């Protein structure tokens, strides 16, 4: 936004073009926006830029009421056509010789802002990261649970095994595998967090069901 340098012919041309189909800088009533631009223009525009001249003379007629016009005066760069680059930057003071001071105060200000933004973003990232749980070591274990004989109620056996609850232990699928003589063993999958659950503990607890369980083996042990 902005008109460019309103004291230059180029800037006035932008203003003129902008005002060709507008009576005021903003909206349909005179406001502080008009006053802001009016003060920047300072002298009446040339007669060939007749839209700008029309507007100028009109706003001049409001000179006495300028304090009471609605709106808030904003930086010059905030007004005008949206596709014009805002060349006013931080400098609303009078233009010096070194307009083209690329490494001057404009940049400093900008990098400070950019720096602040960057730091903010970093902080956000950090906090997000810290909240993220650390990758937990898990394993998938396949257990073979053998009953006493073929008359053991395998359903009950499975129930007992599944009743074993522990933090970091999740039971998976199971199936009955025949071993001979009509006896079936229970093959059941589980996922454990290595830090929390160990196979010893599992064995202890499964074999505690003495009525049903003769023994337990680890058929397979895979790290996830």
């Amino acid at each position, binding site marked *: 936004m902005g008109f460019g340098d309103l004291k230059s012919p180029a800037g006035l041309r932008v203003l003129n073009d902008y005002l060709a189909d507008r009576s005021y800088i903003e909206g349909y009533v005179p406001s502080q926006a008009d006053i802001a631009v009016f003060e920047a223009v300072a002298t009446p525009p040339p007669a060939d830029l007749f839209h700008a001249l029309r507007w100028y003379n*009109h706003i001049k007629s409001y000179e006495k009421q300028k304090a009471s016009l609605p709106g808030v005066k904003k930086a010059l760069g905030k007004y005008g056509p949206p596709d014009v680059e805002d060349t006013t930057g931080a400098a609303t003071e009078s233009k010096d010789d070194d307009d083209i001071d690329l490494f001057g105060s404009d940049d400093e200000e900008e990098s400070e802002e950019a720096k602040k933004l960057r730091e903010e973003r970093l902080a956000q990232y950090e906090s997000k990261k810290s909240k993220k749980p650390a990758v937990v070591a898990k394993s998938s274990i396949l257990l073979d649970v053998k009953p006493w004989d073929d008359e053991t109620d395998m359903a009950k056996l499975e129930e007992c095994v599944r009743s074993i609850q522990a933090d970091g232990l999740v039971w998976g699928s199971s199936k009955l595998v025949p071993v001979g003589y009509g006896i079936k063993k229970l093959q059941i999958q589980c996922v454990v967090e290595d830090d929390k659950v160990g196979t010893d503990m599992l064995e202890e607890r499964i074999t505690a069901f003495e009525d049903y369980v003769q023994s337990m083996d680890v058929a397979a042990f895979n790290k996830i």
Partner: protein
Amino acid sequence: GAEELALLEKLLGLPKGNKYGVQGERQVPVLQTNNGPGLTGLMTIAAHLVKQAKKDQLLGSTAEEKAVIQQWLEYRVTQVDGCSGKEDTRIILQDLNTHLEDKVYLAGNIFTLADILMYYGLHHVMVDLTVQEKEKYLNLSRWFNHIQHYPGVRQHLSSVIFIKNRLYTNAH
């Protein structure tokens, strides 16, 4: 005619209740007043309503302003209302466009009855203009767009769209 005066009444904030009739072939509006003969003529009635509403500034403050307003009111009634055909319309639009080149309002820097009545009078013309025509009469379009946004003016009339088509920018 009478509908326009009703719109004006509303804009001025006057209570309804005025009775309008029409007279003659050209449907000149007549306002029946309680005391005395009716008021005849759009301009006359409009000015009367403005004074009734105590918005005299709409009729201008300086002698010059008042004269200019009267001039445009007369223009409205004689030229705009009396115009028939494309050629006449074109002349009016051109006239107004030229006049509005260096003015925000018809009378210069203030919103007056001239703007109001010219807006109502031209509305049916502006509605039918093509995009190119609106671009051609740039100042008039600007003025019209401005007036139609003025609080209380447009009321139920349709809003005329003005877009600035960059393809047809004037080369000044």
